[in-house]
């Protein structure tokens, strides 16, 4: 590929990535935010390609665009409507300050440091090399990865899937809390400040 094509690809992909990321900052709607995230991820996948890392690029699309974004969308669809805005907290101004400081310092490091030799040839057959490497050098992390993922799955399901009895007990306690303000069992009270608010106004 010529330099021209490479430049075109790099700058347009960089614009896509950063544009998507910045739109996440501004968009108020969480679903829009996820879609911008997808755009950003696609840009990053393209950047991986310009770095000749085709296996990573394809995995990026497969995992982030095909799976994680869907998971996020479903999680959003699962929350009630009121919770779907993507507004910012009051702490955004100081956060911005911190972030700008971090950005300046990292950019300075990135640009100013001499990173040493620049290789001309990229790896070929990366998938095969990664596979070999996984078995020859990283076999323990490889198996631990499987265990980690299964553990994450088990944990996530256990967390997300409340048992029906739990739900019933919880609902009953909340009902009691809502109806009989006098007879609140302190054990059931999850958050004392809010309940005292309720009492104060009722």
């Amino acid at each position, binding site marked *: 590929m010529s330099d021209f094509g490479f430049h075109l690809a790099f700058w347009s992909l960089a614009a896509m990535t950063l544009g998507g990321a910045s739109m996440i900052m501004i968009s108020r709607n969480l679903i829009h935010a996820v879609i911008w995230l997808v755009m950003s991820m696609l840009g990053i996948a393209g950047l991986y390609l310009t770095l000749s890392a085709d296996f990573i690029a394809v995995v990026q699309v497969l995992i982030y665009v095909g799976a994680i974004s869907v998971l996020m969308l479903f999680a959003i669809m699962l929350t009630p409507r009121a919770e779907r805005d993507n507004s910012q907290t009051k702490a955004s101004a100081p956060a911005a300050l911190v972030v700008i400081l971090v950005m300046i310092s990292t950019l300075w490091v990135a640009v100013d440091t001499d990173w040493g030799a620049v290789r001309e040839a990229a790896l070929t057959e990366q998938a095969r090399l990664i596979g070999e490497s996984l078995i020859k050098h990283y076999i323990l992390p490889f198996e631990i990865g499987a265990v980690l993922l299964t553990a994450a799955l088990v944990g996530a399901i256990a967390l997300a899937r409340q048992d*029906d009895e739990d739900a*019933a007990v*919880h*609902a009953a306690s*909340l009902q009691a809390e809502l109806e009989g303000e006098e007879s609140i069992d302190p054990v059931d009270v999850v958050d004392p400040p809010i309940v005292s*608010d309720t009492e104060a106004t*009722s």
Partner: protein
Amino acid sequence: MTTADDTRLAMQGTIEALTTGDGSEPVVVNLGPQHPSTHGVFRLKVTLDGEIVRDAEMRIGYLHRSMEKLAEERTYTQNIPFTDRIDYLAAMSNNLAYCLAAEELLGVEVPPRADAIRVMFAELQRIASHAMANGTFINDCGAWHTPLFHMFRDRERVLDMFEMTCGARLTTNYMRIGGVAFDLPEELLPTLESFLADMPERIADYEALLLENEILHARARGVGVISLEMAINSSLSGPVLRATGVPWDLRKANPYCGYEHYEFDVPVGEQGDCFDRFLVRMAEVKQSLRILRQVIDHLPDGPWLADLPLHARPEPGEAYQRVESPRGELGFYLVSDGGPAPYRFHCRPPSLINLSALKEMSIGGTLADAIVTLGSIDIVVGEIDR
């Protein structure tokens, strides 16, 4: 809004979410009036929790034409075309039921040939109607119209015979008080013969295509179940009632038009689910063919219409006559005050009353199950609304 109100509302929301199960908000979805699976302008309003139906409510009246009121202004004979339009998929049965009621009021004796012709057309109508019902039922299960079109072939042949006889295919207006309007045309009997000869093969085709179809089993077995007691209590009738195992068929229980002379069986199901309703209809088509064969073999000669003045005035009184229409017990309740028009004209619509248990059948199933259940009841909106 204060934080406290906020919290209170939030807590209310949590309680609802926790008690409804998985914490999803119920969605109200309208199926109909303009919907591919409601067979007309019928509206089913379902409340869904995910895919599960939590509540189902039907809204009808989009096709209400106030026939019962209109009929009070027309003479007994003029009312026959109305009955075509009540259940436009079983016009013959409706004609028949109305004429039977009017004949009871007027005390008319129907000639035997007319009785045989009436039985013939009522059974042909049953075949046509069941073909339509089963075809659309499979469509509701999600088939891409193929069984429907195949069954339409048979319905088409029946309608051709109607056209041959009375000039109309759908709204036949063929029965008269005291008999039928015309005698059978010459070409009808050969056509009917060839129809009877072809049908067993066709039915074997359908059975091969549908009866052992795993997907159809998975979709219709154990779906829309109604118990025997509930079915009787809900006044269900026709194949919907018989699918629960109740051997109740008015052709046997209260024979009219000489049904007692014909040999046939009443198929009954076991489990009262959608698949049993489908099977009962399939079996009934076979029995109808049996009856038709006997009708042709013993077709009496003679007049086909009793001698009756056109504007007959019955004595004051009332009559309730019912027939086993393809959809169930179709009754006509006529009250006369001695005038030329009925004082009160009421139709007992099997489609409407079979819907009594729709809510019970569909709650707890999925949205797709509700559609299949509705399809298995075999409604005709013209009859529901009248």
